């Protein structure tokens, strides 16, 4: 569904991504693992067209998107849940939820979204940033489920959240996978990643250095500890 080849990205003079190659097959949950500064978030932003300069090839459903503006990339069917969550302070919860444009059919309708995230319904008219961290994260995921985007980019959805909320987000990711969504997930926490993903790409210094299928994860624990320095 997504084929990334020789992806390079720059912030000013800094050459952050130095030839990234990986694939996200349709219907899978794929993670990018790696230390801080390995280039995971920049990879997400590059796919979405949110970096100042990039080169290489990003094909989504067979179409080259490297030259497109970020709104065109979104309209082709990709939704992003950014690392900093991106909840808008001047919008209430409903307005935040309804903000992303509908990009295709098959998005979840509001009753389904509220069934997945009951808190959001209770707080529909609260200011977006008045929600707790966990609720903001759910809002950030919920709003791209609505749009009909088939590929979801989730950047560290569990960062800084309580274990019970991490579990809820894990359930949500498995649920949306069952519904046929494809997910590219950035994670620091590979124990969490192991509970939801089909395969893991390991990043370091702006490159993909290994791919481990989830089934082979326990056999590769030693290698993974070495990569992540944990």
């Amino acid at each position, binding site marked *: 569904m997504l084929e990334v080849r020789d992806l390079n990205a720059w912030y000013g003079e800094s050459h952050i991504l130095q030839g990234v190659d990986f694939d996200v097959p349709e219907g899978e949950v794929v993670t990018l693992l790696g230390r801080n500064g390995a280039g995971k978030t920049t990879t997400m932003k590059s796919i*979405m*067209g*949110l970096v100042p300069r990039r080169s290489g090839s990003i094909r989504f459903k067979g179409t080259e998107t490297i030259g497109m*503006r*970020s*709104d065109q*990339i*979104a*309209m082709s069917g990709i*939704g*992003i849940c*950014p690392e900093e969550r*991106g909840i*808008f*302070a*001047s*919008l209430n919860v409903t*307005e935040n939820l*309804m*903000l*992303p*444009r509908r*990009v295709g059919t098959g998005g979840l309708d509001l009753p389904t979204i509220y069934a997945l995230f009951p808190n959001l319904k209770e707080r529909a008219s609260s200011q977006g940033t008045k929600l707790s961290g966990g609720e903001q994260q759910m809002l950030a995921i919920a709003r791209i489920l609505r*749009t009909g985007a088939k590929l979801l980019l989730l950047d560290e959805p569990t960062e800084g959240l309580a274990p019970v909320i991490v579990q809820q987000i894990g359930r949500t990711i498995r649920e949306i996978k069952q519904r046929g969504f494809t997910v590219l997930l950035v994670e620091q926490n590979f124990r969490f990643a192991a509970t939801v993903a089909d395969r893991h790409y390991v990043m370091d210094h702006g490159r993909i250095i290994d791919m481990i299928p989830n089934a082979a994860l326990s056999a590769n624990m030693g290698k993974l500890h070495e990569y992540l320095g944990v």
Partner: protein
Amino acid sequence: MFMILGYPAPLLFGQLLLGLINGAFYALLSLGLAVIFGMLNIVNFAHGALFMLGAFVAWGMLEYLGIGYWWALVLAPLIVGAFGVLLEKTLISRLYKLDHLYGLLLTFGLALIIEGLARNQYGSSGMPYRIPDLLQGATNLGFMFLPNYRAWVVVAAAVMCLVTWLVIEKTSLGATLRAATENAPLVQAFGVNVPRMITLTYAGGVALAGFAGVLAAPIYSVNPNMGENFIITVFAVVVIGGMGSILGSIVTGFGLGIVEGLTKVFYPQGSATVIFVVMVIVLLARPAGLFGRAA
């Protein structure tokens, strides 16, 4: 004669009305400036010139084409807005990545050019614009005569401000605008064509100035300096209300118009400076303005 606080009531109410009229123009103009500043981060010094352009378009439509006031009230803002699209696309959009000063210089230069061209063509003495028949005359309120046209200006400006506020605060289009003011790249990554939205925001802001220009045409003579006379005060209003605050610019616009009018009654010498005195006090007490959010 009926007196209030030792002043003749007709004088007091007369100045109050004058203050409200000026306030109506302050509100409409500063509202457009606030919308533009919020979205584009540009202080639009061409705003006064575009207000003047609105009045000239209305005058020209009547003079050359025989199109009357009511049509002008609809068409002139659209024409000024279209001109705004042209300005934003060809000139202003090149400045977003640069320092504020460049936007200030460009729009100030544009104001000088537009006003200079108008002066060159029509001189600076001004042309009269007739009050539409429907709004001729005055109504006796018992304590004063209220000129119908002036009442209409206050009502029309208030309604336009209210509609703009409702669009921005209560519609999904407004929600997208507010979100883009906060974090434009993310809004674009949600599928919104942000560059086009910025162009239309600028057009909308200057269309408000054009609308104010048409309203102003029958009150002040249509002349190339009419925007210049207003714009300095309007910038003070914007600063007092809080840069980029929609509600702030509306409330402060009307409020300061009234303050200015009353000063003319109670302390006429101070009427030209009172707004700037208020500005100094507000900036000392609340540097972000009355309705501004501290950065």
